[in-house]
């Protein structure tokens, strides 16, 4: 406390030598410690990288044919296991809130809400009740157990587990001594009973041999399917576990599930329709030849097919397949971890983020991430626009047939012909929208399917009116051009030339007396 009357004498502050004396050595000590610590850290980093590059695998546990728990495999292969577990990750933008009472914190968005034309298409089938966007492998079992399609009044077979659970564990629980018998039993069981035996979604043992880690096929339906397909290529008795190349296996293991299939007969045996080949046309021909239909469309009475998710077959028609680029190359790309590369088991879209595009596309494509993304977006948006138009065409065919049936005065043969066209249009539309790449896996092929849908819907609508249009196969031979009547050359310029006699347009008059169309699809 000082006052104005009593000035304080100015005193030089006494320098605190005792403190300053230690400041400099202390600073040197800290800096020296930091430098040394940093160098040792670098040394350890180098040592770790060197170790990684020489010793990428340590066996901690012995894996056997009954090592069903992926965590056990994770002890030997922690990097692969960790990335597999990450299939549970889901971007917030893709999440939807489950209904009340649902044990899930979040679920995938409804595809039916995004495009209600699916609801019309699937009238008479469980898919019209609930159908969602796909999500990570981690959820396949849980999501299936909770989907309305497996709840009463719907009855589903144990066959569904073929692709929604780790099957070796289920078969072992049914009969460890007879896997083939156990598989037949599982297929026929009611879904709820079979699902009780399933403990995991797809895990290590579904694709890998526990002794050698080699890729292997565990699903009997694929073994039969690929055998039938290879026979069409002139290769008899093909066994993927013996005859497939390693590169083929990088697609085959995925093709155990990401395919079109049906349940055969009362045994509910899972079968892939590959006897004629892998295209949508081949599949339709196959189903027609055995007289199979998944359900009767309740609006039109058509016997129709439900296409599943023919990712493998569609990929097989594309440029990547032709160049030997497999599912794993893009969806499980090699990922650098320190000095080693690990196959990324977080199976997902290569478009997930920039790092993912780099790992997958840029391994072969020398462009930037942005350019690759742009290419994919162009392919997908083109497909989206075209497939929306074909969906409209199908939808309008369904409404037309329903209206004709309601009117009750249409030649039943015309309706039957229209139903056949609906069967084709619906199967193809379903085929391309249920496929998971939005046209990317085989862009030109996908658009050809879309064009076929539009054509089949158009022909169906004409068939309903008793009209059968010719199909031009070779225009040079089986097509006659229609030519306008030439305008009179002497006509005065002031008066317009008389129009050519128009071909009368056949109005959609429903008449039971009219003759039946002769051709069917």
């Amino acid at each position: 406390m000082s006052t104005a009357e009593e000035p304080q004498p100015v005193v030089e502050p006494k320098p605190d030598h005792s403190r300053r004396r230690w400041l400099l050595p202390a600073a040197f000590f800290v800096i020296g410690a930091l430098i040394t610590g940093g160098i040792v850290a670098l040394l350890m980093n180098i040592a770790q990288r060197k170790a990684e590059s020489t010793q990428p695998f340590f066996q901690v546990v012995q894996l056997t044919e009954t090592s069903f728990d992926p965590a056990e495999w994770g002890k030997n292969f922690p990097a692969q296991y960790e990335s597999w577990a990450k299939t549970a990750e889901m971007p917030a933008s893709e999440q939807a809130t489950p209904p009340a009472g649902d044990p899930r914190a979040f679920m995938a968005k409804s595809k039916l809400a995004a495009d209600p034309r699916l609801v019309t298409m699937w009238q008479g089938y469980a898919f019209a009740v609930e159908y969602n966007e796909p999500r990570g492998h981690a959820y396949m079992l849980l999501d299936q157990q909770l989907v309305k399609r497996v709840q009463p009044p719907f009855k589903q077979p144990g066959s569904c587990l073929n692709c929604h659970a780790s099957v070796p564990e289920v078969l072992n629980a049914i009969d460890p001594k007879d896997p083939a018998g156990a598989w037949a039993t599982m297929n026929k069981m009611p879904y709820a009973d079979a699902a009780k035996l399933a403990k995991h979604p797809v895990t290590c043992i579904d694709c890998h041999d526990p002794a050698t880690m080699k890729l292997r096929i565990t699903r009997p339906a694929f073994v039969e399917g690929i055998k039938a397909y290879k026979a069409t290529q002139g290769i008899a008795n093909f066994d993927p576990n013996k005859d497939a190349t390693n590169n083929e296996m990088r697609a085959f293991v995925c093709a155990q599930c990401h395919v079109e299939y049906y349940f055969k007969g009362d045994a509910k045996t899972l079968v892939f329709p590959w006897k004629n080949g892998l295209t949508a046309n081949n599949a339709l021909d196959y189903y027609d030849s055995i007289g199979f239909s998944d359900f009767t469309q309740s609006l039109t009475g058509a016997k129709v097919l439900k296409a599943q998710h023919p990712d493998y077959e569609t990929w097989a028609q594309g440029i990547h397949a032709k160049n030997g680029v497999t599912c794993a190359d893009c969806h499980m790309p090699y990922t650098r971890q320190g000095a080693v590369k690990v196959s990324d088991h977080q199976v997902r879209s290569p478009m997930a983020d920039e790092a993912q595009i780099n790992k997958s596309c840029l391994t072969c494509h020398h462009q930037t991430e942005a350019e690759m993304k742009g290419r994919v977006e162009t392919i997908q948006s083109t497909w989206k626009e075209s497939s929306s138009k074909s969906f409209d065409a199908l939808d309008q065919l369904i409404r037309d047939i329903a209206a004709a049936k309601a009117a009750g005065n249409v030649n039943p043969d015309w309706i039957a012909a229209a139903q056949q066209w609906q069967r084709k249009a619906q199967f193809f539309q379903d085929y391309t929208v249920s496929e998971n790449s939005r046209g990317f896996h085989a862009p030109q092929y996908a658009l050809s399917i879309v064009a076929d849908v539009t054509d089949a819907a158009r022909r169906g609508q004409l068939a309903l009116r008793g009209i059968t249009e010719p199909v031009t196969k070779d225009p040079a031979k089986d097509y006659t051009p229609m030519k306008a009547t030439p305008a009179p050359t002497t006509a005065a310029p002031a008066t317009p030339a008389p129009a050519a006699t128009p071909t009368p347009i056949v109005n959609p008059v429903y008449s039971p007396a009219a003759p039946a169309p002769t051709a069917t699809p």
Partner: protein
Amino acid sequence: MVSKLLALAGGMRGFLVLIGAGLVGVTVGIMGFTFGYANGFAYFADDPATCKQCHSMNKQYDAWAKGSHKTVACQECHSPEKHSQPVQWLLSEADNGFWHSLKFTTGAYPTNIKIRDHNKELVRENCLNCHGNLVSQIEQPSLHSNAQIDCLRCHNEVGHKR
């Protein structure tokens, strides 16, 4: 013993200097060992195998070793010419060496590595160092767009398929 040491060092101050010098020696020793352990001397030579010491360029190295340019060392394409441009050479080595060490240590780089634009330009110039005479007629900027022709746009796999 202690008093003898103190006397030898010329008092307390000298003793502390000795300790300090010893500590600096420890640090330098660890530095030296780390450098040697990491095979740091290789970076001052031009053996192409040096470039895959950290394993991130294994793919490029393997492809180069099987390619048409396998007798041309990495730096002949990727660095300025050492004898005619010693300063640029040193700067380029330091620039790339620093970023390579940092990125590899932190792991902050993509799985498929990419060349930076100025290094790409350097490669183009080095193409011309050898092939300049052959391509002098086509290497000129286009009459219409004035754009430099980039050898690598078409010949992007001659050095090493990525």
